[in-house]
């Protein structure tokens, strides 16, 4: 029996299981799509999951860690270690295209670039929008208002 193949299959399986762990603040996006989930390693009987924080003060990291442990426990893995990695440094480029789509459908304008001034409304698509606050419901988002449909919305700020 080739244990190396077994291990790599196991890693793939764990990634699949962890697809159900969503960001607590944006529950339509998995932590993999957001770029938080970086690695899964098998060390003996231990599953080591490496994650990186989006924002350095992000309070969701504690919840995410617990969600990972609980999800894997419910799938038969009871020896799980979640490690907070220093590298790579998270940036918004790490958000997958499917993640950005899901974000938009959820009503959050996905990140563009730091100097981007034209943010389109995720509801009606209008570019006639105004920044109300640089910091919205969480540090990673800014608050905007659409001048066309008059809906307020979050913009996921660019970090690169």
């Amino acid at each position, binding site marked *: 029996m080739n244990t190396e193949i077994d291990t790599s299959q196991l890693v793939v399986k764990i990634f699949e299981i962890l697809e159900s762990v969503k960001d607590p603040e944006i529950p339509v996006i998995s932590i993999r799509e957001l770029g938080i989930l970086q690695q899964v390693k098998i060390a003996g009987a231990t599953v080591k999951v490496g994650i990186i924080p989006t924002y*350095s*003060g992000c*309070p969701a990291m504690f919840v995410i860690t617990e969600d990972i442990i609980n999800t894997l426990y419910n799938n038969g893995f009871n020896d799980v270690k979640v490690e907070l990695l220093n590298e790579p*440094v*998270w940036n918004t480029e790490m958000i997958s295209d499917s993640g950005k789509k899901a974000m938009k459908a959820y009503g959050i304008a996905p990140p563009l670039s730091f100097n981007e001034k034209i943010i389109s409304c995720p509801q009606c698509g209008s570019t006639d929008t105004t920044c109300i*606050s*640089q*910091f919205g419901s969480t*540090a990673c988002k800014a608050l905007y208002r659409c001048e066309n449909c008059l809906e307020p919305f979050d913009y996921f700020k660019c970090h*690169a």
Partner: protein
Amino acid sequence: MEPALYQYLLRLADSSLTMGQRLAEWCGHGPYLEEDVALTNVSLDLIGHAQMFYQIAVEVSGEHKTPDDLAFLRDAHEFRNPLLTELPKGDFAYTTLKQYFVDVFNLHLYQALSKSKHQPLAQAAKKALMEVKYHLTRSQAWCERLSLSTDEAKQRMQQAFDDLWFYTPELFETDEAMLQLADQGLIADYSVLQSYWQQQVSDLISKCQLVVPQSGWLATGGLQGEHSEHLGYMLAEMQFLQRAYPGCEW
């Protein structure tokens, strides 16, 4: 244990922690809801930066301590932040201008530190830098808005400027140990930081039509652990739980 680097990391961490704690005092007291949320979000970022720097300090020290031990179990004379960051929150103009001074400083500081030869410090600086850019965009916009607004807003901005200006040179104070760290490529060259800072801040001063005060008492002492009485009160509140219930977790 590298004592010089350890002390320097404490300076970084203590500065971010005291700034973050002061901003947290605005929670529920911001001028309006969105701004209240912004102030506390910036606070959270700064406390996150403090945590990263304390973590590196712990690793450098090789002692069995945690970032929480460094934040909650040291007394005022062991803190290394400049006096500017421990000043009370004051009014909104005072908080905003103090934040602006520190944001400009942090921008250039973390740009330089992201090239540090101490890899963990370089990584932490890169991370902090992304967030500081947004802090600065916000604090600068508010400085301009307040300075070019009503007479009362202008007067309060000028008052804040008069009160804070002579605390800013301490941001760039260095000692022999820091100069050696800079020579080794581990930390920033503070004289270079100071020239960048002065350039950028003088642009804002002219844009906002602020009048530079002519003379005043120059703050100093933070680097040696000699602080104003404000820090003691801040720590009394911030550290209360760990002092009253040692090792308490939740």
